[in-house]
């Protein structure tokens, strides 16, 4: 330490040196290159290897993409156009098949005149999802709803939708946009109604069925109110019993009679006609929405103190997780007729949805069980200390935290399930990847076209699955409450 009273020491510098620019190796591009690509021989080798891979991919695939043809009606015509434009022997993609067979890839063998129905259902999916997935930010909600509304309405116009349904679509979107501004939770009502609406619009039939199903729930609710005066436990069970009784014994006949009295039917569409991405998304969305609650119940059952309940849950979960999905699909296709009363036959798509749901629910249960186990025991004890009963403790304290911990696992289960929808090809359903592409190739015009359909279908699966995983990362960040 120099003492200012004694004057400056000779070896101390009086004034600052002028600032020098950093050495060339330590700034900008050069520094970045040196640090990230050429910091040592191994690193440099890896860089060269990486460049070789990139060059290989570019060299092999770029010309093929660059020479792609989007406008042709058959593969030979495609090849002729490529040969004329780029010279004999040039390779090129023929994406014209996507353009030509677009409707088949999206709707399968759905009647062309009715394409607007699944389109409307798909558009309304975003309205139903808005209060669930985009509840945090009003801006994002606005963007999602606006985009969905505009895209859906434009497609509906292009698909020659009857004007009355166009009006209904406009009304739903307009109301949804307005409601989403201030009271987005009201939209949850639409989300609850959406599955029924979607099923009705896709499969068609009489609207009275939907009304009767809702009526059954209404009776159940009445029973809940009335029995609730006597005892809360009785209320729940009587609601369930009454609803089931109404559905089993009353709804069917009532719907038929009402339909005869005043028809509210739209054209029925067979399950075999449903294919393409319509089928994949239908199975995926239905499986996702049903497997999460079922998985939660299974996870709670497996952790239950009741021996019988937990062992039943263990047997169910381990059995489902121990067999391939494809065997379960075979059960749905071949064996379900044995297990049901003689003479019953029900829809193959529904059977597949049930199996896919059970399959995903078993995996979901394990993911959620992990989340439950990761929760500190203090949380359970605190809930008990507050005097909460089992369901209140689960609903208010345990599940919100456990589900938050398990978000990554839950979403990967969803992604896995959506990818697994391709397996329904093996029970004869027209999913886009295999059976639709085979159907396209079965035609003489597109015989021998492999890569373009694969790339198209793969790209759509990639977009959907990748956005799901990005969304889960976003959700994790938004829900993070601790500052780790």
């Amino acid at each position, binding site marked *: 330490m120099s003492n200012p009273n004694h004057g400056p020491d000779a070896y101390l510098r009086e004034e600052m040196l002028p600032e020098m620019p950093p050495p060339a190796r330590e700034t900008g591009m050069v520094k970045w290159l040196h640090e990230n690509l050429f910091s040592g021989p191994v690193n440099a080798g890896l860089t060269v290897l990486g460049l070789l891979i990139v060059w290989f991919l570019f060299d092999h695939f770029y010309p093929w993409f660059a020479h792609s043809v989007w406008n042709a009606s058959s593969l030979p015509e495609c090849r002729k156009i490529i040969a004329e434009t780029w010279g004999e022997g040039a390779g090129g993609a023929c994406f014209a098949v996507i353009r030509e067979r677009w409707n088949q890839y999206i709707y399968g063998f759905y009647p062309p005149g009715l394409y607007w129905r699944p389109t409307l259902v798909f558009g309304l999916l975003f309205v139903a999802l808005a209060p669930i997935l985009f509840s945090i930010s009003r801006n994002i909600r606005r963007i999602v709803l606006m985009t969905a509304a505009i895209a859906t309405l434009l497609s509906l116009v292009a698909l020659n939708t009857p004007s009355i349904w166009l009006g209904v679509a406009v009304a739903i979107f307009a109301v949804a946009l307005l409601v989403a501004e201030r009271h987005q939770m009201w939209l949850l009502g639409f989300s609850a109604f959406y599955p029924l609406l979607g099923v009705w619009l896709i499969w068609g039939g009489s609207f009275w069925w939907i009304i009767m199903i809702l009526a059954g729930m209404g009776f159940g609710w009445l029973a809940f109110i009335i029995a609730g005066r006597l005892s809360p436990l009785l209320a729940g069970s009587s609601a369930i019993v009454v609803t089931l009784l109404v559905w089993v014994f009353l709804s069917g006949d009532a719907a038929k009679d009402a339909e005869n009295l005043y028809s509210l039917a739209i054209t029925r569409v067979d399950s075999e006609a449903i294919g393409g991405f319509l089928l994949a998304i239908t199975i995926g969305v239905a499986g996702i929405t049903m497997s999460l609650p079922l998985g939660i119940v299974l996870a709670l059952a497996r952790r239950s103190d009741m021996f019988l309940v937990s062992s039943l849950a263990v047997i169910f979960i381990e059995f489902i997780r121990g067999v391939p999905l494809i065997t379960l699909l075979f059960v749905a296709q071949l064996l379900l007729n044995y297990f049901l009363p003689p003479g019953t036959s029900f829809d193959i798509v529904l059977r597949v949805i049930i199996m896919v749901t059970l399959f995903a629910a078993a995996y979901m249960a394990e993911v959620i069980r992990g989340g439950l186990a990761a929760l500190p025991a203090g949380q359970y004890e605190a809930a008990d200390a507050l005097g909460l009963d089992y369901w209140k403790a689960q609903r208010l304290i345990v599940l919100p935290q456990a589900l938050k911990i398990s978000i990554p696992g839950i979403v990967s289960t969803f992604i896995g399930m959506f*990818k697994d929808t391709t397996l329904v090809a093996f029970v004869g359903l027209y999913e886009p990847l295999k059976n639709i592409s085979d159907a396209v190739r079965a035609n003489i015009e597109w015989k021998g076209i492999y890569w373009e359909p694969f790339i198209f279908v793969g790209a759509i699966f990639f977009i959907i699955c990748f956005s799901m995983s990005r969304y889960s990362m976003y959700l994790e960040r938004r829900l993070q409450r601790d500052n780790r």
Partner: protein
Amino acid sequence: MTEVPLGAEQPFRLSMLVYDRRYRSMTFQVIVFILVMALGWWLVNNTIRNLAALGKDFNFGFLFQRAGYDIPQRLIPYSSDDTHLRATIVGLLNTILISFMGCVAATILGVAIGIARLSHNWLFARLMAIYVEVFRNIPLLLWILIIYAIFTDVLPPPNAYRGDDPQWSMIFFDQVALTNRYTAVPAFGMSNDPGTIDLGARITVNLALIAFLVVIIGGWIARRAILARAQAIQDRTGHRPVTWWINLAVMTVPSVLLIWYFGLHLLAPELKGFNFSGGNNLNNALVVLWLALTLYTGAFIAEIVRGGVLAVSKGQTEAAFALGLRPKATMNLVILPQALRVIIPPLISQYLNLTKNSSLAIAVGYMDLRGTLGGTTQNQTGRELESIVLMMLIYLVLSLIISAGMNAFNRSVRLKER
């Protein structure tokens, strides 16, 4: 603490079955039991009635009838005159074969990619990230179909390898030929073949294989013993004897001697006439399925490995360096043991997934358990109930065995809590 004998002196009332927590769970379980029994009875009763209506019964006698179909890829001798039971076993062995090959290759690929993704090299890490995301987000079925299309459409027939200036040339030092009908790989040959022993049921095992297995397992046990002795000496005297060359010798010398004794060599496939011979002509269905399962599962394993290494906090590395450990010792003694604990449980489920996904063999016609018992046998005999139930049980047992084995391994590397 004062004891409050709640309810102890209250007489039992019926409503306590519902309102008293001690009895409520019993009530609930009794209800669940009755419901499950009723459901089970309903299903069994329906099945009996349906079977009776179809004039069928539930019996596994068909397993002993003549199968009458051929299986191109098999590990044990099989002909179409054999029983359905033997076909089922051939299929099960094929499932085990593809699962084992897939698990080994996917682990190697996944570890390599996972570590490459952690590399400081910007370009290489990005490329690996793209690989992982692309393979994880696209269905396995698509990869199987794409690789199958490459094998059937892009690869040439065997005679493209013919001539002085062939259109295609063999890869891996002229050892492997890819064709659209099969993949020709080298086979093992022995100039001093010790012959085979018969295990019964027309299953034979070469004595040389048994000799190699004995030598490798023996070498491994000897290595454990040497390491334990070295540890004991270190504990006693503080000096650890140098063991690496003894270990190396114990592990390799007997095998080398056996190779020399049996005259083991590779027989490269050669084009003779229209086909390759001399080597092994692998069924393309097997190769396609193996590649697809490896590439797909490898992407998942890469993420598991990366997550495991990232889960070891940086402080551990720094502490190891502070203790004066070198980077290699740090990796072996500090990072890997901790990362393994994170890696192994999800790795087990990836192995299980791969085994179950091998049933996608249906897409390429590889005759695995589903292809034999759940496919041709089921179709031919019309015994779908028995076949599918039996197939599911076999898959279940297979999964349980894999997870039991891997869980035992997991316990051995788990943190020993004191």
